[in-house]
């Protein structure tokens, strides 16, 4: 499956998705279609390799969750995004589709505070359990006190 075929089949199935052609193919979907789009990418586009998942903090415009899934057989890479909206931190989890998303979503919750619905084990993964706040948010000051060491 080429990029053009993938883009046309996405446009056919998801009318509200905005598609930027290029490498990788970038698709933005609303959060309520996030998991169904991932299911579609896995089953119809053959993107079975879950590469990574992270988030971007666009300050007033809210958080954006980004994931890259790959079809290694056809050399197709798909970057999928979803805007959560201002002040919103809930997002559907991809764990029912890709089991590899488990720790990625835990890390995303740890660093950005994105709460993934239906995640089986959503708790901090890198920082200590007693950590306050989510340090990769733009609103987190780097000299936030952390007694007794800072």
């Amino acid at each position, binding site marked *: 499956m080429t990029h053009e075929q993938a883009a046309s089949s996405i446009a056919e199935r998801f009318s509200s998705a905005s598609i930027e052609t290029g490498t990788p193919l970038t698709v933005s979907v609303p959060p309520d279609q996030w998991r169904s789009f991932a299911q579609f990418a896995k089953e119809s586009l053959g993107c079975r390799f879950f590469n990574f998942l992270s988030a971007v903090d666009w300050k007033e415009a809210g958080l954006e969750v980004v994931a890259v899934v790959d079809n290694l057989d056809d050399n197709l890479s798909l970057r999928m995004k979803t805007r959560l909206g201002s002040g919103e931190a809930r997002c559907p989890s991809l764990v029912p589709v890709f089991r590899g998303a488990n720790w990625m979503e835990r890390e995303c919750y740890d660093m950005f505070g994105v709460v993934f619905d239906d995640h089986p084990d959503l708790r901090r993964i890198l*920082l*200590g359990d007693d950590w306050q*706040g989510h*340090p990769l948010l*733009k*609103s*987190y*000051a*780097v*000299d*936030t*006190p*952390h007694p*007794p*060491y*800072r």
Partner: protein
Amino acid sequence: MAIKSPVPEVPAPVWRSFKDLQEFEALRQRRPEGDKHSAAFEALTEGIHQFPGGFVVTTLADTFFNWARKSSVWPVTFGLACCAIEMMATFASRFDVERLGMVPWASPRHSDLMIVSGTVTIKMAPMLERIYAQMPDPKWAVSMGSCANSGGPFRHGYHVVKGVDRVIPVDVYVPGCPPPPESLLNGLLLLQEQIAHFRRTGQRAAPNEKLD
């Protein structure tokens, strides 16, 4: 939560309770009641010291014991980051700290020196503190590299302790990023001088100047 300027204002280190070397020395000099043997030994050494010409024996013995103490410093292996590679190189055959009597030992309970080699994160600091507390008194600490000295290139990060001297008392700061084995060797020689100074005077010497 307001966005602050990118350069953080780092507050001064807060010292918490730790057992000083002088406390240990006072404890060592206090003898339990009814200890006949050590009292007899002390009387004997005092007698030798007061005997004409006998001071040569006692002072030479003191010098010998001081040399023996400072030449048998066992560091606990505590590698945290890339500085640990340089520390391992220092322990290995080319630089060979074993000629200084140092044996890298994997147990804090048998060691009297901790070389903090690398970045101390806020998550790691309680473990570092616990390992330091497990070492028997008298104990020394060498802070190796920029990260352990002050946070180094990660000083403006959210997760790094800005200098290991906020967690444990440090005797020698070794600058560099990472310090080469020669640098660490120099630091260890400085530490030997400090140990000799402590044995002579009963006072812990001030740490050397901290260069990031």
